[in-house]
C-alpha cells in the first residue's frame, strides 16, 4: 500500500544517501578513536610533505649562501632548528586534526542516527504491512 508518510521518509533517506549520507556512512564505519587517529596520521603525512616543500623553497632562496659556505655552515644548529620547527608543526597539526575530525565525526553520527531512526520506522511499518495488522 502507498503511504504518504512512508514516501516522505523514504524521500528524506534517499536525499540524504545521495548527499551527505555517502560521506557520513563511510565515516561512521569506524570507531571515533580510529577515525580521528587515521585522519591525524593522514594530516601529519601531509604536513610532513608540505614542510619538506617549505624547507626546499627556503634552501632555494639561500642557495647562493649555501654553495658559498658549504664547509662553514653550522649544520648542527640548522638541523636542530629544522627538527624543532617540524616537531612544533606536528604537535599543532595533531591538535587541529583532533578537534576538526572529532567534530566531524560527532556531526556525522548525529545525522546517521536520524537516518537509522527512519530506517527502523520503515522496517517496522513494512513488517506490520506484511502481517496485515496495519494498512498503509
Amino acid at each position: 500500500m502507498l503511504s504518504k508518510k512512508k514516501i516522505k521518509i523514504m524521500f528524506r533517506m534517499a536525499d540524504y544517501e545521495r548527499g551527505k549520507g555517502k560521506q557520513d556512512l563511510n565515516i561512521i564505519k569506524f570507531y571515533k578513536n580510529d577515525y580521528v587517529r587515521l585522519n591525524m596520521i593522514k594530516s601529519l603525512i601531509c604536513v610532513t610533505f608540505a614542510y619538506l616543500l617549505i624547507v626546499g623553497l627556503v634552501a632555494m632562496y639561500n642557495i647562493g649562501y649555501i654553495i658559498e659556505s658549504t664547509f662553514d655552515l653550522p649544520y648542527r644548529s640548522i638541523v636542530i632548528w629544522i627538527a624543532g620547527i617540524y616537531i612544533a608543526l606536528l604537535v599543532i597539526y595533531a591538535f587541529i586534526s583532533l578537534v576538526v575530525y572529532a567534530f566531524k565525526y560527532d556531526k556525522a553520527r548525529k545525522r546517521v542516527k536520524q537516518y537509522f531512526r527512519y530506517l527502523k520506522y520503515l522496517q517496522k511499518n513494512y513488517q506490520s504491512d506484511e502481517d496485515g495488522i496495519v494498512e498503509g
Partner: protein
Amino acid sequence: MILRLLDFKESVKQLCEKYGMYIKVLFKLLAAFVVFSIINNEMGYNNTVNSIVIVAGLSVISALTPDAVFIVITMFLTVVHVYSISPVLAFVIIAMYMIIYFMYVRFAPKQVYVILILPVLYAVNIPYVSPLVCGIFMGPVSIISNIIGIFVYYMFRGIIDTARVSDGSSVSNTVNFFNIIVDNLRNNMYMFASMIIFSVVILVTYIIRRQKIKHAANIALLIASMISVVSFLIVSAFIKGSDTMFEILTGSAASIVIAYIASFFRMSLDYSGTKHIQFEDDEYYYYVKAVPKLSVSAPDKQVKTIHAQNPTGNTANIAEVFNVDYNLSKKD
C-alpha cells in the same frame, strides 16, 4: 521602498529555486570566463592560453563540471603563464599551491574560493569586500584564507612586476628572479598591514553580527567598513607603495555596496531547489519530484475606492441616518 526590495528578494529567491540548476551553470560560466580573462589580462605570457577560444572552452568545461575542476583549471592557467617566463618559478608556484592545500585547504575545503577570489577582487580594485562578506557569512575561520589570498595576490603582483624588468631565461636568472620576488614580499609592509586590517575587519564584522540586536548585520557592516577605510587611509599615509587614497575610497565604497547587497540577499547557503529523487521498495519504484514550499506569496494588493455618497432620504440605510460614511466603516 524596503517592501519593494523584499518583494524583489523573494522573487529572486523563487527564481533561484525554480531554475536553480541553470542559474548555477550560467553563473559558473560567467564567473569562470571573468576569472580566466582577468588572469590572461594580467599575466598573458603564454599566447596559446591567451586566445579567446581557449578561454571560452575552459569556461564551458568549468561550468559543466564540479567546482573542483574550475579551481584546478584556474591554478593550471596561472602555472602555464608563469612557466612561459620561468619554468623553475612555475614549480615554485606548484609547490606553493601544494603547501596551501596540505596545510590549510584540506581542513577547510570551502575556503579555497576565498583564496581564489581575493586576487581577482584585487585586480578589479574591490578587495575590501572580502573581509566584510567573510565576516557576515563565514566567521573567523576565513581569516587565514584571506591572509593566504592576499599573499597569493602579492606573489603574482611581484612576479608580474619583476617579469617586466628582467627575463628569466637562464637558471641563475631564475634563481635571482625567485629571490627578488621573495625579497619584495618580505619588504612589502603594505601586504602585512592589509593582512592585519582584513583580520580585524573579519573579527569585528563577525562579533557584531552575532550580537542579539536589531539589524546586527547592517551595524556590523557599517562599523567594520569604517574601520577598514580609516585603517587603510592611515596605513597608506605611512607606507610607501600602498594604494592611493582615491583607490582606497572608491574601492571601499564599491565594496560596502556589494557587501550590503550580499547581506540583504542572504539566503540559506545550503538552499536546495527542486529535487528529483528515485528510490524503490519491494512493491514500487518511486520517482519523486520535491518542490520547496515558498515562504512568502506574491504581493496581494486590493484597491478600494472610497467616495462620498449623496443622501437619498432612505431611512433603511442605517449609515445615512447616523451620518456615518458606511464605506469607511465597512472597510475597517
